């Protein structure tokens, strides 16, 4: 039965040999990548539990659970305040980015108006402008509005994101037009259709974007550095930088402790949201 053998090609001898060598290569690449990515993290965790004297003497593996670095990090700078600031900015910023992206995409997909395509192309074109270029104008605007050192100043420049609009638009375009028409016939208003049908149907994209936006906001460095001058609104990434600025010898253990604390939300989000993140980025959500 040559046909059936051919159709189940995966189990033939040659297929098996290819996949075996392929497997070895795959694991080799993955191992190198895992070491390259994992080493700095493990090294930081290790340093964060090691007393400074040991570090100076070249001992990087802690012999006991040394927690002073963490205590020092919180005492040297108002680290708890930084974390609160980051959480507020991250959550509020993410929520607003989701809201505005969703509404903009809804208009682009479901509301008929002239010049829709052009507007979308212009929005897409803004993706080519590097964020750094906008820092100066954004700073001037925020300063003119008196929003330096405020949460609003940290959040506002980032609430409109092309990436979010684009992803939502692509997702919403997959919603069959009959669903909108059925809603029209049933008597739903545009807003009711948005809330009852569109929002639940793009939930996958929302989860993906929420994780993504939160991580981007949490890890943001340049804008929080520019738009804050004191600790009232300063975020954790800037706080981390200030741990290094003390005079004389840097306390590497304390800095590592700060870095570990800072990366915990990132790691948690990626750990729990990994699947949704992959799904949202690759699949076109609900069909």
């Amino acid at each position, binding site marked *: 039965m040559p046909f059936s053998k051919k159709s189940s090609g995966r189990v033939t001898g040659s297929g098996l040999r290819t996949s075996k060598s392929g497997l070895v290569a795959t694991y080799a690449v993955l191992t190198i990548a895992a070491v390259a990515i994992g080493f700095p993290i493990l090294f930081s965790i290790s340093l964060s539990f090691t007393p400074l004297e040991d570090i100076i003497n070249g001992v990087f593996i802690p012999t006991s659970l040394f927690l002073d670095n963490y205590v020092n990090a919180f005492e040297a700078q108002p680290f708890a305040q930084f974390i609160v600031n980051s959480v507020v900015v991250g959550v509020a910023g993410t929520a607003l980015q989701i809201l505005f992206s969703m509404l903009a995409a809804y208009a682009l997909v479901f509301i008929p108006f002239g010049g829709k395509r052009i507007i979308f192309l212009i929005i897409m074109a803004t993706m080519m402008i590097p964020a750094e270029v906008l820092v100066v104008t954004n700073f001037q605007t925020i300063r003119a509005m008196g929003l330096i050192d405020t949460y609003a100043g940290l959040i506002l420049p980032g609430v409109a994101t092309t990436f979010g609009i684009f992803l939502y638009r692509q997702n919403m375009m997959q919603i*069959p037009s*009959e*669903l909108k*028409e*059925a*809603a*029209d*016939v*049933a*008597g*739903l208003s545009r807003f*009711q259709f948005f809330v009852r*049908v569109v929002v*639940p*149907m793009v*939930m996958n994209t929302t989860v993906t974007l929420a994780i993504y936006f939160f991580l981007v906001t949490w890890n943001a460095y340049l804008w929080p550095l520019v738009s804050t001058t004191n600790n009232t609104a300063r975020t954790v990434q800037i706080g981390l930088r200030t741990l290094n600025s003390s005079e004389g010898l840097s306390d590497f253990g304390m800095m590592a402790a700060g870095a570990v604390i800072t990366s915990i939300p990132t790691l948690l989000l990626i750990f729990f949201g990994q699947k949704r993140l992959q799904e949202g980025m690759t699949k076109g959500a*609900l*069909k």
Partner: protein
Amino acid sequence: MAKIVCKDLKKSYDGKTEVLGGINLEIEEGEFFILVGPSGCGKSTLLRIIAGLEGVSSGELIMDGKLANEMLPRERNLTMVFQSYALYPHLTVRDNILFGLDVKKVPKAEQEQRLAEAAEILGLTDYLDRKPRALSGGQRQRVALARSVCSHAPLCLMDEPLSNLDAKLRASMRVEIRRLQQQLGLTVIYVTHDQVEAMTMGDRIAVLSAGRIQQLGTPLELYNHPANEFVATFIGTPQMNMAVAEVAPEGLVLNGGLTVPLSEADRAKLPMGQRWKIGFRPEQVYPATATSVHDTEVTVVSSEMMGNETLIFFDVAGTLFTARWQGQHRIADGATLHVSLDPRYAHFFDVNSGALLRAAEDLDELGVRSTSAAGAAAAAHIEAAPAAAE
């Protein structure tokens, strides 16, 4: 008072090409009205205009006596069943059926009552908590119908609702939709490209082609008296056999190649002129008997045995004709066959305009003949032309 009146309704998207070119029709309350035609004929556009999903370019749409050109869909008090069913994937069957009722401010208790009724009528009671993706095609279709039933709107628009179902399910859903319409006294406007659906379900049918109504009438009117060549070939399966016919001293010459002998009586009854388009329904092509006047010899191209009937395809000077005979006839491909092409049972159309000049005669009588006489004729055929039988 007519439920819906279209007066010279026109639709054009670009201002140049007319998708609908002057539609005039009246749809009565409680009527099952079919819009049928090939793809792109404008039938769905007309339905969407009635639903309010598309605007009109000119003309008037009157619903319940009121001008409805500018009315929003929700103001028209209708429901619509879509080809794709338009079920919300994130909602359960229950919520899909009840979708929109709260917007219409139907009290909760009444919603539940309507839901129970609709689910009962359509056999969905056991599936109310499922999501649409857990349902089969037929069940999804029933959910879409239940939504219409639940809304208690007197007008229901259906846009090819059965085209995604398999043949068997389609046949049973045809009966179900018709029963539902009669039970609830709904006015239904039903769009389809399937002329079988049109013939079996509709009280009246409008046949559309190129944005214009070709004919409007009951299914049998369309079948027996097609207004033109388009309707004649569109209604009926297998479709009507068409050929150019010319009268000559030896008889009627089809496509310039096949001669059908004519009696004096036949000649007297021919329409004016010398040349026409002539159409024979497949069931009006009979096996020739020893006494047939219109006996003509043809070559069989192929045949299909359906069990209860046999379709025989034969060549008429370059055009494939189909004969539908009752019973089982074993006929070899390439065999010669004697068939009777009686001009009394043929439709004559103007060769240029395609308009009907003379419909086939005595179709009621024909009905009798096709059931009783065909069997006997078939038996005679096998005796008379044994060479043709395998």
